């Protein structure tokens, strides 16, 4: 491992200064559960590591029914999962965040880190996508926002420009009769990286028998987490039937472009897409209070 400098600033403006000063040689440290492993294995390099966990805005969770949820980028998974507002209003998000590593990892790892690391298999990202989450980004040129589905651009690469960093993630208040779910397939019962991950969210009509809208997202089946927009759009206005759900799952499967690697074969991954999307939709429909027509 190469030696590096370490800074732990108290404010956002200092981070901007530090990033600008190193001209790309600096890396943000949140929980470090990706970064430290990568530095040690020589997969990433850093001349300066900037720990952002001392910045209050980056480790806060706020919620109000009007503006929705805002999660500081460095907030730990365990803090998020134990937040009463998150568990009450966003159980589909908890599904995903709760899967990231074991207890020790959960106490360090952040959702911002999960997102910025831009792994195709990151568990939180498909769940964030189906919740229409938005990234809040800050840099020398001020702040900007970006939908989560546009944040990852390639394996390990995100849309941040040099000198920018992620400050928080926001999620709009959920509509009535909204439900979401995330699940992943791993060969063991814990301690693994998703072979395929699938998130789904639905909004049902007042009878809870039709979809008003739906969003479906997949992980580990393309260079970036994938929003299967056609599959979601297909469900809008359709009745809640097994047939429609299966068709949406097939459509999502069709846009998946998995590869074969150490964690799974392309063929098995493709097969799993349909299985998992259907199961994720089942979960979402159940949470929205819906049920299948006979």
């Amino acid at each position, binding site marked *: 491992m190469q030696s590096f400098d370490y800074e732990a600033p108290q404010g956002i403006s200092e981070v901007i200064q530090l990033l600008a000063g190193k001209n790309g040689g600096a890396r943000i440290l949140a929980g470090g559960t990706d970064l430290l492993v990568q530095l040690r294995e020589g997969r990433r390099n850093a001349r300066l590591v900037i720990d952002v966990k001392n910045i209050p805005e980056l480790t806060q969770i706020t919620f109000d029914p009007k503006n929705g949820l805002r999660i500081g980028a460095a907030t730990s998974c365990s803090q998020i999962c134990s937040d009463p507002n998150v568990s009450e209003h966003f159980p589909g998000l908890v599904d995903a965040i709760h899967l990231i590593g074991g207890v020790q990892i959960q106490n360090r790892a952040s959702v911002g880190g999960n997102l910025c690391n831009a792994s195709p298999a990151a568990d939180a990202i498909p769940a964030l996508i189906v919740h229409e989450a938005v990234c809040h980004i800050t840099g020398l040129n001020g702040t900007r926002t970006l939908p989560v589905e546009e944040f990852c651009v390639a394996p390990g690469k995100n849309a941040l420009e040099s000198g920018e960093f992620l400050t928080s993630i926001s999620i709009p208040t959920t509509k009535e009769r909204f439900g979401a779910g995330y699940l992943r397939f791993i060969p*063991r019962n814990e301690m693994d990286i998703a072979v395929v991950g699938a998130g789904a969210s639905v909004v049902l009509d007042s009878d809870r028998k039709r979809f008003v809208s739906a969003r479906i997202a997949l992980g580990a089946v393309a260079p970036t987490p994938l929003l299967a927009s056609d599959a979601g759009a297909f469900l809008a206005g359709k009745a809640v039937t097994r047939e429609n759900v299966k068709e949406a799952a097939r459509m999502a499967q069709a846009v998946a472009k998995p590869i074969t690697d150490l964690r799974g074969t392309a063929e098995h991954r493709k*097969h799993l897409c349909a299985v998992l999307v259907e199961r994720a939709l089942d979960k979402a429909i159940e949470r929205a209070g819906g049920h299948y027509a006979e």
Partner: protein
Amino acid sequence: MATLEKPNQYKVIGTSPLRHDGVDKVTGRAAFGADIRLPGMLYGAVLRSPHAHAKILSIDTSEVEKLHGVHAVVTAKDLPDLESRVVELGEGVINRKYQSNNVLARDKVLYFGHAVAAVAATSLHVAKEALDLIRVEYEVLSPVLDVRKAMETGSPILLEDLRTDEFGKKGETRTNIAGHYKDACGDVEKGFREAKFIVEREFVTKMVHQGYIEPQNATAQYNPDGQITIWCSTQGSFGVREQVAEILEVPVSDIRVIPMEIGGGFGGKIGVYLEPLAVLLSRKSGYRPVKLTMDRSEVLAATGPTSGSYIKIKMGADANGRITAAEALLVYEAGAYPGSPVGAGMGVILAPYRIENGVVEGYDVVVNKPRTAAYRAPGGTNAAFAAETVIDELAERLGLDPIEFRLLNASKEGDRRVNGSAHKRIGFVETLQAAKESAHYQAPLTGPRTGRGVASGYWGNYGGKSSASASVNEDGTVSLLEGSVDIGGTRTSLAMQLAETLGIPAEDVRPVVADTDSIGYTEGTYGSRTTFATGWAVYETAKGLIEKLKERAAILWEVEKDKVNFENGVFFSSEEKLTFKELAEKLDETGGPVVASAAVQPKGYGPGFATHIVDVEVDPETGKVDILRYTAVQDVGKAIYPAYVESQIQGGVAQGIGWGLNEEYLYDEQGRLLNASWLDYRMPVALDLPMIDTILIEVANPGHPYGARGVGEVPIVPPPAAIANAIHNAIGVRLTELPMSPARVVDGLK
């Protein structure tokens, strides 16, 4: 745990005293190899090959030597260039030249992770940085990764000097086939003619690792007078002494090996990797102690996994359910150098059954993967996976319950195996009967997509050389020195045998694992031999103490020695009596200290048989298999410490489940290992396993004073086959490739 009802005729054996090393282990005070810290100690690191197969054109270490903090660099040039010579090494054989080349590659690297050079520096950080400064020029060659392709003529050759050992004769051409072996009995063609049903199938299994929790480590001090001390994690301290002496061409008497506590071995810590490097680095750094430890990826990439294999097996049975003939071909990956456990696999594959007409053929083949090492019943699991799947299918064709079919053909005392040897008193039938009557087998299977499978297994076990010595303390306790490294609780199981023989409580024995200068020669802890063979040494030692104590009693009582008797811990004559403890207090008045020792090489080891039952649930959509219930029935001879015996069985089953479901070495086309981490080498975790129930059958081994048989290895033999049979029962698909990962299950369903 259930033990078939039988009153325990012993006072200590069969009970569960507190383990002697328990407090050290649970408080974290037990000292493992990585805990060693010596004054002036340097830290070593090993440079490893990024290629699976390449010629080493040059190694330039000049830049490293300039780096501040580096004290020594070694390459194969620092090792003696050894001639080929084959020697025995616990549970296998090895050629010293190849072992030297495995420790540090000389002309060629033969697998991804093959050690090429090592450095010693003032810190691990500097040592690792130094590795980046070593310039190695390679000429990359095509890797040979598939065992059957390696056998084809025209395949790239790994070892220029390798010739096939063909039924004991050396071949003449360059080859990757190190050995070709064959056992046969009866008339196979005739046997198959008599068969009503014949099942023939091919099986493929992948390389898997032992997965011990503690990585390899070694610390060495080379003194200016040539005396060497090594602290390490090993299954056998004398084996380390021998190997280091051979590789470095120094006398064994110059080496003292101090075995530290060991965090698992399973056969993988018999051969040396780091020890010779630590010694060389210590010598070259001006006699400073040097410590080397592997990280997990080094352990997985470069230390002994066990063979992947290709197995073809054909079996026939007549209308009465009698097996009429069997034919098996086993082709095992040796890894980079010869020495796969194919011979042991050949011994296991048909052993549980009476086979009048049989042929078993085996090949030992080198491929560009790490040199395999022993792994718990080496070669047995692959073999049983093939045979027990075919047995299950034959039972199905015959319309017989799989246990009934096995009972019809089960080997008993006197039955001959295909290699001609006759079984001694064995308890296979007893395991089958107990399995049949078990609560598990009697319980109905519930739930959709569930299935039940049965499989049996055999392991020969081993005896070997062991020593022990004991001294009586004035407070009536006994200090016991023994040379067997304690992996599975053998300090206690040995102390118990001493205590039983002396008629004292187990707590009154203080067992200590001694180093190579402090105890007589003792083979390693392998082959399920320690409780049996070192048990014999301890038993003989106790007998020796009793004889000497009788002499002391005779002096006290002024009688002839033969007038002194001993029973249940009491010395007595017609008039007098003294307990062991009382007599111990009187040693000073009768001639001073009493010690005894024994060295043994007992041959009466008895094989172990096991029958396992498993229930699984298969998710046909994802292909995931969950283990719902597991019962392992085993003939253990005599359970000296029943809770340890049960843990051995549970551990073996857990490893067998991993091997069956998800564990495998994944290589890319260039032969680079892709999953050298716990994250991606998918061993089972706690949530993957149910409680593993055990039923201990005690068919005493007549070759041991307390009836003990080895128990540690046979439990890993049946699991993959039992699971395969359960999957078939659940979804109607016969899987013939390990691991039976979700993708393979889904493929099977297509």
